[in-house]
Structure formats: C-alpha cells, structure tokens
C-alpha cells in the first residue's frame, strides 16, 4: 500500500535522545587521547598529569561560565543520569537525618529524577509527585503548599524531555529559597539553548549533559551552589572536589567544553524556526492532530504532536524505512510497555500517547528536512488511517 520514496539523505530528528558529534568537538578531544593521556595529577605530579589537570580546569571554567557559576561549583559526571542521582541521593543522604525525609518532584520528570526519588522512598523517604496542568506546568501554589518542615529537596526540571514545556524555574527557585529547601533542576534539554544564570535564578543544583549539544556521550555535569548540603555518593578517590570519585574523563570534559562554545544564539533561533515551521505545517495540513506541550513556552528544538487514530510505532517504522528518525510516546515503543508518563501527566489518555511523535532538531537539520518530514509523515499517517478502525479518513 505504501509508496517507496526513500530520501537519499537520512533525516535525524531525535536530537533529544542523542546528537551527532561535531567534528570540531572531536578535534578538541583528540589530544587527550593521544598526547596528554595521563591521569590528572595533583600539582606535585609529573608534567603530563599537570597538563591534564589544567585541561580539566579549563573545561570546568567553560562549563561553569555557561551557567554564570564559579569553576569550583561544577563537577563532571558520566552524564545526566548520574548527575541527577548524585543530586537527589546526595541531598537526601546529607539532610535525611538532620532535617527531614520529604522530597518534592513533578510527575513528568525524566527517569533519572523519578527513579532516584522512588529509590529514596524505599529508604524511608516520603515523595510528593506534583501534578502538572494540560500544558505541563507545575502550579506554584501547589508547590508552595506541598513544602513542609520535613521537606529537604525540590527537583523540578527546567524543560520537559518529551513535550518541551519550560517551567518557571525562577519562581520555583524563589519559593524554595524562601522556604529554605534545596532546589535541583534537570537542565539536560535546555542547557545552552534556554538561558539559565545561577546569579539570577536561585537554583542550587543543575544537571547538564554533553550528548544533547553535539558533544560526546558519557560526559555530563552537576552545578552545585557553594554551601549546598551534598553527601558523596560515588566513593573512591578524591576527584571532583571529593564529591565524585573516579578517573576523570578529560577528553570528554574537553569535548563538552568545546560543544558549549559552539552553540550560538543564531543556531538556536534557526532550530526554533524549524520547530515553528513543522508545528504550523502539521497542525494546518494534517487533520486530527494535537500539539503536546505549550505552544510558545517550549524548548526551541522540540515539537511533539499526536496523530489521532494511528499508533506511534507504526509511524516511526514507516518513517525509518523512508530514512527518518523520530521517537514516540506509544507503549509499543517503550521498554516497559507503558505509554508516556508525560502524556498521562498532562491529562492525556492512552490514545493520546499512542499516536504521539516527538521531533527534536539539531545542528545538522535543515528547513528542507522539515518539509520532507511533513510531506512524508502526512502520507504515512493517511495510509495508516485507512487501515485503522478509528477515525474518519476512510
């Protein structure tokens, strides 16, 4: 039933999951594989180790500066998952006995935060999972009311991994500060794309990662505001200010820093233009489609749309056979066979999750890709609707 148009070029629109490495990032990493490969040593070590230490320090400065922070406030980790684990478990461990055992997170957090919170529940902590509205926003009054004398930590993401909604973290941070509660935010998808300055926004811990900005996989970081109570969670040596043990990933750190330097405001605006073009075209040209997440207050590189009466994995497979990569919130696509908790969180049902497709843009996408994507998905959805028992496109 399907045509066989296959593009000569693979169109990758799953940049929230992973991005293509920028060659310039690889060049920045190369010396730390082949020339300066020693472990970062103390100032009394041998010269190559000192050079490694300096490279790590330079990278740290770049990363910290991108958040308006001091270098001593930033540690490298293996990625967002580890960063959020350290933040949540580290604060819980530091304050659980002293202050209380209550943690607040939103319902639509990504799995590192959600499952770290669930793990702490097993250790006797009590977790409040805050509802979000139909766009994905946390209600500030609801947040305020959920904080008790027992509350030690609030963890609310900067922007959502699936539907792209950007939270009002300035006011969330304000509430936490006023109540004397540590505030962690997962900025994996906003880092360098949406401004976040720790001098202006009262946030204590920030999770970031290189894999979303054309940097290498396996390197991320955690911003830790000076004085934030945080117990060490990965034991071993004294690396990363004695907060995260383990041999430093110096090529990764150098690559991460280079990746940050390469992101520009102009590029982000280009991604925003592609996002808007895709959303406008799909919502006007394809009937029975619903945008998931807020129309404007969303990640510049994210679009998420439900195509009613069809299933997401069928769409992604048809697109894959024609050279397009996207992802879906359908249960059939997930490792746990559960529909997207984010779509359920914004009040969606199985049906809305079932046909939801996430498009995320990156440096190597073009407007032509967007037009090809829209044309192809329109065709695929129309064909799948023909065989669906639901809907009207008979």
């Amino acid at each position, binding site marked *: 039933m399907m045509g066989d148009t296959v593009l000569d070029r693979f169109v990758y629109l799953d940049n929230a999951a992973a991005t293509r490495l920028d060659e310039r990032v690889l060049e920045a990493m190369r010396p730390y594989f082949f020339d300066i490969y020693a472990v970062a040593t103390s100032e009394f070590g041998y010269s190559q180790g000192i050079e490694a230490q300096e490279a790590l320090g330079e990278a740290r400065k770049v990363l910290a500066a991108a958040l308006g922070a001091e270098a001593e406030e930033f540690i490298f980790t293996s990625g967002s998952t580890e960063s959020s684990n350290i933040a949540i478990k580290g604060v819980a461990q530091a304050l659980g006995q002293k202050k209380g055992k209550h943690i607040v997170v939103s319902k639509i957090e990504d799995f590192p935060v959600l499952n770290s919170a669930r793990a702490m529940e097993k250790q006797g902590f009590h977790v409040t999972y805050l509802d979000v509205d139909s766009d994905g926003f946390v209600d500030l009054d609801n947040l305020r009311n959920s904080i008790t004398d027992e509350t030690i930590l609030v963890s609310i993401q900067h922007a959502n991994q699936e539907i792209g909604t950007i939270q009002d973290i300035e006011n969330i941070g304000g509430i936490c500060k006023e109540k004397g509660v540590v505030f962690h935010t997962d900025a994996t998808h906003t880092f360098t794309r949406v401004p976040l300055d720790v001098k202006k926004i009262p946030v204590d811990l920030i999770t970031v990662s290189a894999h979303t900005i054309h940097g290498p996989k396996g390197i991320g970081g955690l911003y830790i505001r000076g004085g934030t109570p945080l117990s060490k969670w990965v034991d071993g040596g004294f690396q990363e200010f004695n907060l995260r043990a383990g041999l430093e990933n110096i090529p990764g750190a150098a690559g991460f820093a280079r990746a940050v330097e390469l992101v520009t405001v102009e590029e982000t605006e280009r991604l925003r233009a592609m996002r808007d073009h895709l959303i406008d075209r799909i919502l006007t040209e394809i009937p029975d489609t619903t945008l998931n997440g807020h129309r404007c207050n969303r990640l510049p590189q994210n679009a998420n749309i439900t195509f009613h009466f069809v299933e997401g994995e069928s769409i992604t497979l048809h697109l894959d056979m024609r050279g397009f990569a996207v992802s879906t919130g359908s249960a*059939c696509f997930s490792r746990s066979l559960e529909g997207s908790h984010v779509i359920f969180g914004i009040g969606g049902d199985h049906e809305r999750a079932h046909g939801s497709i996430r498009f995320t843009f990156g440096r190597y996408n073009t407007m032509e890709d967007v037009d090809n994507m829209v044309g192809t998905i329109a065709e695929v959805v129309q064909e799948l609707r023909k065989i669906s028992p639901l809907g009207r496109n008979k």
Partner: protein
Amino acid sequence: MKFPYSETVLEHFRHPRNVGKIENPDGKSTEGSPACGDMVSVYINVDPETNRLADIKFESYGCASNIATGSIITELAMGKTLDEAKKITWKQAADALGGLPKIKTHCSVLAIEGLRAAIQNYEERHGLVKEQKPTTVEVVRRRLKKVMNPLAGLDVVRTNLIKSVDVEEGTVRVVMDLPADHQFASAMREEIMEKIEPLWDVQEVVVEFSE
C-alpha cells in the same frame, strides 16, 4: 538498514492483506488492549453450507506486530472451517511471519483473539453457543494464559508469575509473584484487568503484587 522485524513482518506491515471492513458481515469483533492501546477489528463471512470462512477482513489501530499479525491470520484463516480457524495459535502466526520479538507478543495475540471473537460472535448470532457458565478459578486461569509476560514472550501462568487466584461473590483476586515496582507490573496489571473484567458475572478485579 537494520529493522527490529523479520522481512516477512515488514512485508505484511507495508502491504497488509485483506484490510478493511465487510459491510453486513456474518460475524465481527473488536478486541482492544487498553494496556498498550492497540485495537483490532475482524470481520468474517461464513459459507453456511461448508461452515468455512468465505471472506475475512481486518482493521488495525496498532503497531507493526499488530498489523502484520492481523494480515497473516487473514491469510491463514481464509477458507478454513470455523473449528480449524479457531485453533490457529499465536505461535503459528508468529512462525508464518518468520518470528516476532517476544516483547511484542501481546500486540500480536490481539489479532488471534480478534479472529476467535469474530467466530464466537457468528456462533452466538446463529445460536451455536451453549449457556453461560459461572466464573471459576479455572476460567480465570484459562484467561490469564492470554496475558503475556513481556520478558519471556510466554504467558504469565506458564512463567509462574501467578501466585494465587481467588473468586468470591463476583470478586476476582489475582496475586502476582512480582514486586509492585517491576518494569512490567502496571502493563501486566492492566492486561489482566481487561481479560477478566468482561466475564459476565465478575463485578470487581483486584490485582496484587507479592511485595
């Protein structure tokens, strides 16, 4: 390119056979899985002389496995007697498709159930079904054999995930030998509910976990 399915699955996915509706069919069914959202409708016409399937069509609101299985069972069932068609198993459909990923069992079982339900619908309409029997532990266990354990690709009874089943005054209580936070706990709970709830004399279904 590397796809997660066999060539035959992809072929049926791209070019599904016998798709669509039959107007005024002799029998029809719609089987849905709220747990994953997939849905299949099956329409049949029966030759009353031979009791064989004269025509069969399907529609799918589902993933690739669901579409491909719907397609292959229409080919397997066409021309068979009702009794033969009822006996077509998931395994036969999966084999005919050159294999299906285990985790996708539950999406594809739906098509088999759709076919059986369409035949049952025909039999009910033509007075070929006996009286309704009361739900017993045995009836529940038989239904649970249709609930798949996604880790094994086999049903939850055969993979020893059912710790106990109780039936008391319309309440069915199923205890699973699984922690409540298991990766597939909620998916399997929903599937169990959807299999047991339609039984005519069941008012409530409770699924519990062992820890």
